[in-house]
C-alpha cells in the first residue's frame, strides 16, 4: 500500500496533496480576507452588489470604530475651523463631527484582562492539579478525573441561568473577577486533562533524581518538570485563550458595562447610526490580532503539542 510506504511521495502524490492543502487554505482564509478588506472599505463599498474586490481603501471603518459621531449640516461644517487631525477629516468628509471616543478601547482591554487572566489561572491551576493527578496516589483518582471531564459534557451555556443567579447573588455580575473565574472554571477541565497527558509522559526518574540531588518535591517540580512540560503548557494556554477570547454567550449574559468584553460589544456598533459594516469588520480585525500574535509566538510549541505522543523520543 502506497499510503503506508515510508519512501518519499511521488510527484503526483505531492501534486494532489498540494492541491488539497491550497483549496482548504483558500476556503478557510476567504472569510478572514473578506473581514480585513471590509474594514478598509467605505460604507457604500461595503454593501455594494456585486461585492467589490477592488476598492479605494479608507480608514473610515477604523475611525468610526474608535469614535462616536454626530451628523452636522453643511453650513455648520463650513463654519467650523479646519480639522486638526486626519481622522477628524475622515469623519467630516462624511458630513459628521466627532462627539467623543467610543467604548471599543475599554472593551478590548477588558477582553485582554479577562482572556489572559483566565488563561493564566487555568494553566496555573491546571498544571498543579495535573501534576498531582499524574504523580500522587489520590483516593478516587479516576472518579475525580471523570468528574472534571464531565463538566464539559454539556454546553456551558446550558447552565447559564443558574450561573446568572449565582453571579447576581455573589455580586460577580459584570465584574472582571467574575468573568475570569467563569472562564477558568470552563477551561480548567481541558487544562487538567491536556496537561496530565503531558506530565504523564515525563519520566518520574527525573524528579526522583532531583529529590536525591538534594531538592524538595516542589523544587524538583519547578526546576525539572515545568521546563519539560513547557510544550504542553504553551499549547494548553493557546486553547484556553482562544476559548476565553472568543466566548460570546456568557459575555452577553453576564456583562453589560464595566467588564464587557469585545465580542458582545462589536455587534452593538451595528445599532449605532445604521449598519456600519466597515467599523464592525475593523473591530473584528483588531480583535483577531492578540490571539494571532500569541499563537505565532507559541507556534513551535503548539505544533509539537498537537503531534505529541506520535513520535517517541
Amino acid at each position, binding site marked *: 500500500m502506497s499510503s503506508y510506504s515510508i519512501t518519499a511521495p511521488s510527484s503526483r502524490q505531492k501534486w494532489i496533496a498540494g492541491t488539497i492543502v491550497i483549496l482548504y487554505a483558500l476556503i478557510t482564509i476567504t472569510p478572514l480576507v473578506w473581514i480585513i478588506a471590509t474594514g478598509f472599505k467605505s460604507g457604500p463599498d461595503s454593501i455594494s452588489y456585486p461585492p467589490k474586490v477592488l476598492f479605494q481603501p479608507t480608514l473610515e471603518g477604523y475611525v468610526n470604530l474608535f469614535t462616536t459621531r454626530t451628523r452636522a449640516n453643511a453650513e455648520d461644517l463650513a463654519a467650523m475651523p479646519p480639522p486638526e487631525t486626519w481622522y477628524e477629516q475622515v469623519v467630516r468628509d462624511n458630513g459628521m463631527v466627532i462627539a467623543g471616543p467610543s467604548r471599543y478601547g475599554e472593551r478590548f482591554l477588558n477582553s485582554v484582562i479577562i482572556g489572559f487572566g483566565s488563561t493564566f489561572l487555568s494553566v496555573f491551576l491546571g498544571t498543579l492539579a495535573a501534576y498531582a493527578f499524574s504523580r500522587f496516589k489520590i483516593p478516587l483518582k479516576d472518579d475525580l478525573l471523570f468528574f472534571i471531564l464531565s463538566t464539559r459534557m454539556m454546553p456551558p451555556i446550558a447552565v447559564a441561568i443558574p450561573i446568572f443567579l449565582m453571579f447576581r447573588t455573589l455580586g460577580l455580575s459584570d465584574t472582571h473577577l467574575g468573568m475570569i473565574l467563569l472562564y477558568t472554571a470552563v477551561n480548567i477541565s481541558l487544562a487538567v486533562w491536556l496537561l496530565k497527558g503531558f506530565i504523564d509522559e515525563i*519520566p518520574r*526518574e*527525573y524528579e*526522583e*533524581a*532531583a*529529590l*536525591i*540531588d*538534594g*531538592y*524538595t518535591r516542589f*523544587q524538583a517540580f519547578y526546576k*525539572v518538570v515545568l*521546563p*519539560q512540560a513547557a510544550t504542553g503548557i504553551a499549547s494548553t494556554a493557546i486553547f484556553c485563550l482562544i476559548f476565553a477570547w472568543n466566548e460570546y454567550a456568557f459575555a452577553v449574559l453576564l456583562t453589560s458595562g464595566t467588564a464587557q468584553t469585545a465580542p458582545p460589544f462589536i455587534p452593538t456598533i451595528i445599532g449605532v447610526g445604521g449598519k456600519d459594516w466597515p467599523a464592525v469588520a475593523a473591530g473584528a480585525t483588531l480583535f483577531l490580532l492578540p490571539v494571532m500574535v500569541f499563537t505565532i509566538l507559541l507556534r513551535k510549541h503548539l505544533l509539537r503539542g498537537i503531534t505529541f505522543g506520535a513520535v517517541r523520543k
Partner: protein
Amino acid sequence: MAEVSLRKASKSFGKDIALADVTMTVPDGSFVVLLGPTGAGKTTTLRLISGLERPDSGDILINGRSVLGATPAQRDVAMVFQQYSLYPHMSVRDNLAFPLRSPILKTPEDEIRRKVAEVAEVLRISGKLDNKATTLSGGEMQRVSIGRALVRNPSIYLMDEPLSSLDAKLRADLRVELKSIQADLGATFLYVTHDQIEAMTMATHIGVLDRGRLVQFGSPRDIYENPVSLYVASRLGIPRLNVLPASVFGGAPYGAMTIGLRPEHISQGVGKPASVTRVEHLGDQTRLHLSLEGHDIVTLTDVHTGLEPGDHIAIQPHNPLFFDAGGARIA
C-alpha cells in the same frame, strides 16, 4: 561516608513482595554488590535506602540513626539510575552541577566549576560539557549520570547497573576507574549488577537476593566458593555452574539430590567417559561442551586442545558442591 543498615526491612507493591525482612549492613568504606535476577529486590533495596520508597516495616539506619523520617535530600545519598535520568533541558555542565547547586549543598560557583571539570576529566566527557544532555550517546549519558553522583561526597553511593549500557571496553575502563575512586575516597558503595566480573572485582561484600530475601551475604570468594544454596551458586560462574543429578558420579553424601560442578571442579583424564559436542575457542580460554549420559556439561580445557566434536574424554568431579532436594547446600 557512612555505614548503612537495613533492619528487617520489608516492602510490598500490592500483592508483590519486593523485599521481605532484609537485614543487612553496608560497612563504612565498603563496596557491596547486590546480585539476583530481575524482581529479586535489588532496585527496591536502593530505593528504600535513598528514601524514594518507604519500607512497610523495619528500619533503615545511616550511621546508626534511623532515617525513616528523612527526605531523600536529607539522607545525603547519591544514586545512579538504571535508565539515564539526565535532565534533558540542561547542558551536561548544568547536569553535573545540579546536585552541587541544591539548597542543601549551596556550593560556591568556583568550587562547582572545579569539581565538574575534575569529574568530567575522570569520566572523559570534558569535551561535551557544553552539549545539551539530549545530544549525547547512550554511553556518554550514562557517564554523565555517574558523574552527577561523583561530584558529591554523600554518605553512600547507590548505583543501579550503572555500566550496563556501555560497550565492553568502556565498561572495563570505568569499572577500574570506579573501583579506584571508591578506594581513594574510602567511599561506601551499594551497587547492583548482573555482571560477574564487576561483582567479583569491585565488591568487598556481595549480597545475594532471592525473591526479596537476602539469602547470603559475604566476601566475593566466600559467595563463590561456599554458596549456601544452589540458587546462590548459580549466580556466579562463567561458564555457568553445571547442575546434574547427584547419582551420576556416585559417592554423594546422604540426602544429596543434585551436584553442582563449576568448570574447574571437573578433572579430565580419569572417571566416566563423556563425548565432546562442541569446542569453543575464546582466545584466552577454550570451552568444552560435553554430553554425559544425556546431561550437558560445560568445562574449560587447554587453550590449544586438539579435541574435536565426537571425541571422548573421561571426567570426574573434584571438590563439587552437593545440594538437597530443596536446593540447600549440604556439602
